[in-house]
């Protein structure tokens, strides 16, 4: 692999990694890197999660692109290839011990939101990281580095901290307080966050100076916090002038003028302060906030926004407090105004009366003085006089109105010729009536007695009735009739007008009651006329009744009692004051003329006391800003009237004709106020209110209902429906405007809190939602939309919510969300983590916290919840778990196939896959298939799947290919490329996170397989090596040896045996055991064995050999504490000299079964005390005794004394002492093997004395004597009686003679083999040749027959076995 190949997984960082001078690092050039490092780097670079890793002795630093982006900052690319301790020197105190722990223990670490001060952005930065260090292992499985998966939490931690401060600021339950209280509360809250706001100063403008109104984290009066600053110039420490202009400024704090600065919660003082004006809507700022900034954070938009939100809250708090104070002042002013108004009316009446008096007096004089003048002069004087009087009456009437309202009406009842007075009043209307095309029919014959009436009141009664009749009559006549009826005078005013609907009749005289939609000459009018009439009639002790038929006409009948008995005595006068009638009538007539279609001007054009005057009563110059008012009324006149009124007052008005349109308009654009009639077609006002309240977008819009229906019940009904105010028609324009203004102001105040709340909720980094009782989501914030993709336009979201996982595609996830949702509905509070689906379809994991609350408006239960996106954490945990599971499985595997199978099972259970298969594409036609379903073969796979798997071979390795039915990846199997396929059967989507995870696991699997493969190979190599160097290729006769490696997965060890034939014919015997396992131990063993062999050949003394070996071992790493048994055997005599370096004693078993231990000659293991002389012992091996030498693996067992194992070994030899040593060795090994095999390696050496005699000689008679001599010598070692020796000699000689004579008659010189072996009670001799001969008849007469007979006679058992390759004569004799 070239240098670039390792880094190919990522162009961005890979390119820079390739530039690093690796040869200068301890890791060396990349092409020489071990596979494990290459794999680790490749995984690192291909991951989209922020990761870094460190490898090797210097912990050389690597990172990927995500880590560079999120964390490394300006240290890139400098950091690549440097020691990690240098890269992160500033936090090495924090992370160094963690890394040491990982390297030391091999266990991963986990830290959540750990505060680290990084130097990556050019300044010391406050950061929080959640990270895990996990160990990286080299090809031999040693921990040589570590991998760090990081999730930076800085934004979240700091965001939550700032959010908490903003939340606390908004948590004050009392809305309106004094300015001092507001400031005290604010500073209490700000002083709890000295991290983001190490210190703050709040200055308020107060005339020419800015006054320090509050501080946190700093003492008032210190140089940085002067108690007051001049506004006018550059005099103070803070730039007051710019701030007064509303500018925000960043002020460096390094200047000396600030003096020593407070540090807040940090070790060092802040470097900057952000100075923010406390803005007032439509005015100069209230003051400004100085916020010292956390020097460990950059002043980014979030930070600036936080400080500005804080300042905004302070400003609004001050605004509320001041506006509350202003309102209090205004209330006091209004009371004052009321008092002033009363005074005004009294005064103005007086003021008017004075000039009137000054007019009337001279007129009277002129009329007297000019009594002789012409008629015309008199007539004009009369006009002046009459109108003067009328004006005087008008003034008095104005006063009467206020008296009536105040209940202080002063009546003056005088005896009146009622018919005449009434007729006169009627005649005033004549011209107007006639101009309207009607006839006025006055039928007022004089009554026989006067009626006591207050003339002014009576005029109002009659004029109102006449005015009313003219207003509603379009053709026919108006009749006025006066009669006597018993004790009453009866006055009837009748018309032929439109009439009054029967349903309206009972309320005809109600105050302010108007008949809606009646056809009339005008819709103007106060609606007070008939009510006033009835009150006035009532004051006279009379009654008024009405009869009406729609389309026919209306008749009012008044009954006034005669006499004075029904009147208060103090108000009755006996003399009429003689004033002219009709003075009050003029305004009525003027008004009536103005209803008429003629263009002829009305008698006066001043407009009369109508709404215009009322409009002027509205205090102030209009609304502070142009509020939007939505007017809903089906009556066009009313609608226009309202629109005109409101527009004139400065509101922006939208008109709609019914409730449905109103609802649509309000939803389209939320108005500041809705003014709506109650009675409307399609959707009435009450229903409109409840619909508006039900929709979160319009729930807070104030609604002012207008209704024709008076009375408390109606207004309660309206308010209950949720209306903010209720106004009964007819209403005064001033009253309407006052109420509109009040509601808009109130809403604005309320809206301010709402906007504050919305801003607060929207600035939460966690998603926020509110559910109603059914689980329908009715409110969300911006973060909710950011995380899930579902915005407020789709509200409400009823369950099943659209972000639930798709049930058919992923039933498990769907069920999980369903369970959590049920909990959310039932529990008072809780939290859970669930999978959800983003609007664009991708999978997310969110951690939800929820709480039950009560909606203060409706009293109904709601669920308020927040959640955050924990997808990254979820997958990080899943990844850690999966990696751990995979590592565990792989480490348990004893060999490569087992490792692969274990790995596939991990993948299968992780994804709940149907099956996971791995195809290894070796040389053959058919790939080797391994599957979680053991019976599955390559041929069983569908053809399409086989093709897909084959195609994956062409993909880059560790690149996951996902399909509907699953996902596949190519990775390096130690033998050939391997494709792994996870078959999900389309049960669930295989998302990008799954792909990343599979890629990661595939990398680990490849590494694990490589390791397993290497272990396999090493083990095999070591065993082969060990066997190769263990002992001599040919053992001397009489010996048997065994070597057994420990059971898998344990490795070979350092045990050995050796025999050395010394020049003097003696035999050196060595059995040893090096400490440790594996190739290393094997190589130490090889060196010791060779050295021991050489030493023995040089000086055949066991003690001296071991003493010399001590010196040698001291120089060989890993040789110390090796135990060795070294002996020198005289094979003829069985004399054994030996010395033991801490080795378990040999066991000698005698022919009779008794045994002894070779315990003498013992000293320390090798190299423990080099230079010390070693002891030596001698032992004589009896004939046919068996010597057992061994290493401790044979006898050492857990929880069992060594002596027990030795006893067992001795017993095994005793029982097998009749067997040939070769068979005995096998028997001992299997007899002592533990159930699961040897868990340590074992070397074993057996010697039976004497050694069997083995001779090969040419088939020549001359060989017989030397063979015989040798056999005799051997037989002498066997400790046998002379006769037996002679018999065996003869029998063997006969067999040899046979072989020479018959077996090789035609091929003299071929080999004949003789073997003699002494077992404990049997002597056995075999003679074999390579020829074929018939067995001669036993008999005396033939020479050969005699030989066979001798053999049979001398030996106990003789068999002659002819075979294709020769003939073997086997003879045995019992010797015990």
């Amino acid at each position: 692999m070239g240098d670039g190949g390792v880094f190919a997984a990522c162009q961005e960082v890979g390119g820079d990694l390739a530039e690093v001078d690796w040869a200068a690092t301890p890791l060396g050039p990349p092409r020489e890197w071990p596979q494990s490092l290459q794999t680790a780097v490749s995984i690192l670079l291909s991951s989209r999660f922020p990761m870094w890793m460190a490898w090797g002795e210097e912990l050389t630093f690597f990172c990927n692109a995500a880590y560079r982006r999120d964390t490394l900052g300006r240290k890139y690319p400098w950091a690549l290839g440097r020691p990690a301790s240098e890269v992160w020197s500033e936090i090495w105190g924090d992370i160094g011990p963690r890394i040491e722990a990982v390297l030391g223990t091999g266990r991963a670490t986990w830290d959540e939101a750990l505060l680290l001060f990084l130097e990556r952005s050019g300044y010391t930065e406050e950061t929080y990281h959640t990270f895990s260090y996990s160990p990286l292992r080299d090809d031999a499985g040693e921990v040589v580095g570590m991998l760090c998966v990081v999730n930076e939490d800085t934004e979240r931690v700091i965001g939550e901290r700032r959010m908490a401060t903003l939340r606390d600021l908004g948590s004050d339950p009392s809305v309106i307080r004094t300015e001092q209280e507001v400031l005290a509360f604010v500073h209490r809250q700000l002083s709890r966050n000295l991290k983001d706001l190490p210190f703050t100063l709040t200055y308020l403008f107060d005339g020419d100076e800015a006054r320090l109104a509050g501080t946190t984290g700093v003492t008032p009066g210190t140089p940085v916090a002067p108690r007051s600053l001049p506004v006018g110039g550059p005099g103070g420490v803070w730039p007051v002038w710019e701030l007064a202009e509303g500018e925000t400024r960043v002020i460096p704090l390094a200047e000396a003028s600030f003096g020593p600065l407070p540090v807040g919660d940090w070790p060092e003082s802040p470097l900057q302060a952000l100075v923010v004006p406390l803005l007032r809507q439509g005015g100069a700022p209230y003051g400004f906030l100085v916020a010292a900034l956390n020097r460990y954070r950059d002043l980014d938009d979030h930070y600036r926004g936080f400080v500005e939100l804080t300042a905004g809250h302070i400003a609004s708090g001050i605004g509320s407090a001041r506006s509350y104070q202003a309102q209090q002042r205004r209330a006091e002013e209004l009371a004052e105004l009321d008092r002033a108004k009363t005074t005004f009316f009294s005064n103005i009446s007086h003021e008017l009366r004075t000039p009137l008096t000054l007019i009337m007096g001279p007129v009277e004089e002129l009329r007297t003085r000019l009594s002789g003048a012409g008629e015309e002069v008199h007539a004009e004087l009369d006009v002046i006089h009459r109108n003067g009087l009328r004006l005087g009456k008008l003034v008095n009437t104005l006063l009467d109105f206020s008296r009536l309202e105040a209940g202080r009406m002063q009546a003056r009842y005088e005896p009146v010729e009622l018919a005449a007075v009434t007729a006169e009043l009627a005649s005033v209307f004549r011209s107007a009536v006639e101009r309207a095309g009607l006839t006025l029919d006055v039928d007022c014959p004089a009554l026989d007695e006067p009626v006591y009436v207050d003339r002014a009141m009576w005029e109002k009664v009659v004029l109102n009735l006449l005015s009313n009749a003219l207003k509603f009559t379009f053709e026919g006549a108006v009749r006025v009739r006066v009669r006597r009826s018993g004790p009453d005078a009866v006055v009837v005013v009748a018309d032929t007008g439109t009439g009054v609907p029967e349903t309206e009749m009972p309320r005809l005289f109600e105050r302010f009651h108007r008949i809606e939609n009646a056809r009339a000459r005008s819709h103007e009018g106060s609606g007070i006329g008939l009510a006033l009439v009835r009150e006035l009639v009532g004051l006279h002790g009379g009654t008024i009744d009405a009869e009406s038929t729609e389309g026919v006409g209306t008749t009012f009948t008044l009954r006034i009692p005669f006499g004075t008995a029904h009147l208060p005595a103090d108000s009755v006068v006996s003399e009429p004051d003689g004033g002219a009638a009709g003075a009050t009538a003029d305004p009525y007539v003027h008004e009536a003329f103005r209803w008429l279609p003629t263009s002829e001007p009305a008698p006066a054009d001043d407009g009369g006391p109508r709404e215009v005057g009322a409009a002027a009563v509205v205090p102030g110059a209009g609304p502070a800003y142009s509020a939007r008012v939505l007017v809903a009324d089906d009556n066009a006149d009313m609608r226009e009237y309202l629109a005109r009124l409101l527009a004139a007052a400065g509101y922006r008005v939208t008109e709609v004709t019914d409730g449905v349109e109103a609802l649509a308009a309000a939803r389209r654009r939320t108005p500041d106020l809705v003014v709506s009639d109650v009675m409307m077609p399609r959707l009435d006002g009450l229903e409109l209110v409840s619909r508006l309240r039900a929709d979160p977008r319009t729930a807070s819009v104030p609604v002012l209902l207008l209704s024709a229906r008076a009375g408390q019940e109606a207004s309660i009904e309206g308010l209950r429906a949720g209306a903010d105010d209720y106004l009964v028609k007819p209403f005064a324009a001033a009253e309407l405007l006052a109420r509109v203004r009040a509601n808009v102001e109130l809403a604005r105040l309320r809206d301010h809190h709402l906007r504050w709340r919305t801003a607060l909720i929207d600035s939460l980094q966690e998603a926020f939602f509110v559910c109603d009782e059914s689980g329908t989501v009715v409110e969300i914030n911006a973060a909710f939309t950011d995380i899930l993709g579902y915005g407020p336009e789709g509200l409400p979201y009823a369950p099943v919510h659209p972000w639930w996982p798709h049930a058919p595609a992923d039933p498990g996830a769907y069920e999980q969300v369903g369970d959590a949702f049920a909990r959310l509905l039932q529990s008072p509070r809780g939290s859970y983590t669930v999978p959800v689906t983003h609007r664009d379809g991708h999978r997310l994991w969110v951690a939800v916290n929820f709480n039950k609350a009560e909606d203060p408006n409706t009293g109904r239960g709601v669920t308020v919840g927040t959640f955050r996106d924990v997808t990254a954490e979820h997958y990080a945990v899943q990844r850690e778990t999966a990696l751990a599971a995979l590592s565990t499985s792989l480490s348990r595997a004893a060999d490569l196939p087992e490792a692969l199978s274990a790995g596939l099972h991990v993948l299968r259970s992780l994804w709940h896959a149907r099956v996971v298969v791995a195809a290894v594409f070796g040389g053959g036609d058919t790939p080797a298939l391994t599957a979680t379903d053991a019976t599955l073969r390559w041929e069983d796979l569908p053809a399409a799947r086989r093709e897909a798997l084959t195609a994956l071979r062409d993909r880059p390795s560790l690149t996951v290919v996902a399909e509907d039915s699953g996902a596949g990846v190519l990775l390096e199997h130690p033998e050939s490329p391997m494709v792994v396929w996870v078959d999900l059967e389309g049960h669930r989507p295989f998302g990008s996170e799954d792909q990343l995870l599979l890629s990661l696991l595939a990398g680990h699997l490849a590494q694990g397989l490589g390791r397993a493969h290497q272990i396999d190979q090493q083990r095999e190599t070591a065993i082969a090596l060990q066997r190769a160097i263990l002992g001599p290729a040919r053992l001397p006769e009489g010996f048997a040896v065994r070597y057994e490696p420990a059971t898998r997965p344990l490795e070979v060890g350092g045990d050995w045996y050796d025999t050395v034939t010394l020049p003097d014919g003696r035999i050196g015997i060595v059995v040893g055991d090096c400490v440790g396992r594996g190739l290393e131990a094997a190589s130490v063993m090889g060196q010791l064995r060779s050295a021991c062999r050489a030493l023995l050949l040089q000086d055949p003394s066991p003690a001296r050999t071991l003493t010399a070996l001590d010196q040698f071992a001291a120089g060989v790493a890993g040789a110390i504490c090796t135990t060795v048994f070294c002996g020198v055997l005289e094979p003829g005599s069985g004399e054994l000299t030996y010395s033991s370096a801490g080795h378990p004693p040999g066991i000698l078993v005698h022919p009779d079964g008794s045994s002894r231990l070779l315990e003498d000659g013992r000293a320390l293991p090798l190299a423990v005390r080099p230079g010390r002389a070693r002891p030596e012992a001698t032992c004589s091996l009896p004939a046919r005794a068996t010597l057992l030498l061994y290493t401790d693996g044979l006898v050492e067992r857990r929880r069992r004394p060594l002596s027990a194992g030795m006893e067992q070994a001795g017993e095994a030899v005793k029982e097998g002492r009749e067997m040939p040593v070769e068979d005995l060795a096998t028997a001992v090994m299997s007899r002592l093997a533990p159930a699961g095999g040897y868990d340590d390696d074992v070397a074993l050496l057996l010697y039976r004395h004497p050694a069997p005699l083995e001779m090969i000689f040419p088939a020549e008679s001359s060989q017989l004597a030397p063979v015989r001599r040798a056999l005799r010598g051997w037989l002498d070692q066997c400790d046998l009686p002379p006769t037996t020796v002679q018999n065996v000699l003869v029998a063997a000689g006969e067999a040899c003679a046979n072989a020479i004579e018959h077996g090789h008659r035609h091929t003299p010189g071929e080999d004949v083999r003789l073997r003699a072996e002494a077992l404990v009670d049997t002597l056995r001799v075999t003679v074999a040749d390579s020829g074929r001969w018939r067995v001669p008849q036993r008999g005396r007469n033939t020479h050969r027959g005699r030989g066979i007979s001798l053999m049979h006679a001398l030996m106990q058992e003789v068999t002659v076995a002819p075979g294709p390759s020769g003939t073997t004569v086997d003879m045995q004799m019992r010797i015990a």
Partner: protein
Amino acid sequence: MTTPLTLTPGRGPDGTGHLAVSGEIDMSNAGDLAEALDSGSGPLVVDLTGVEYLDSAGLSVLFAHAERLELIVPPLLEPVLTVSGLADLVTVHGLGGEAGSRQ
């Protein structure tokens, strides 16, 4: 290398022929013995006291002259002579009393 065999002819006090044999007798040198026996006639005392080994090849030579031989054998050779049946044909000295009585 031939098997060491020494043949020493002589006369006994009564003039009977006497052959002292020492060494080992096997097929390699049985011919020498046969030659020595064939060269004479009449009774002959063969003294095998010095013989350490005697196999069927030697026995066959002795069987061929059994009628004129008297044998003096060491205990070591007795089993061979007995087993081969030669002891039944010739007078064997040095055997146990039983052998003599067969005479």
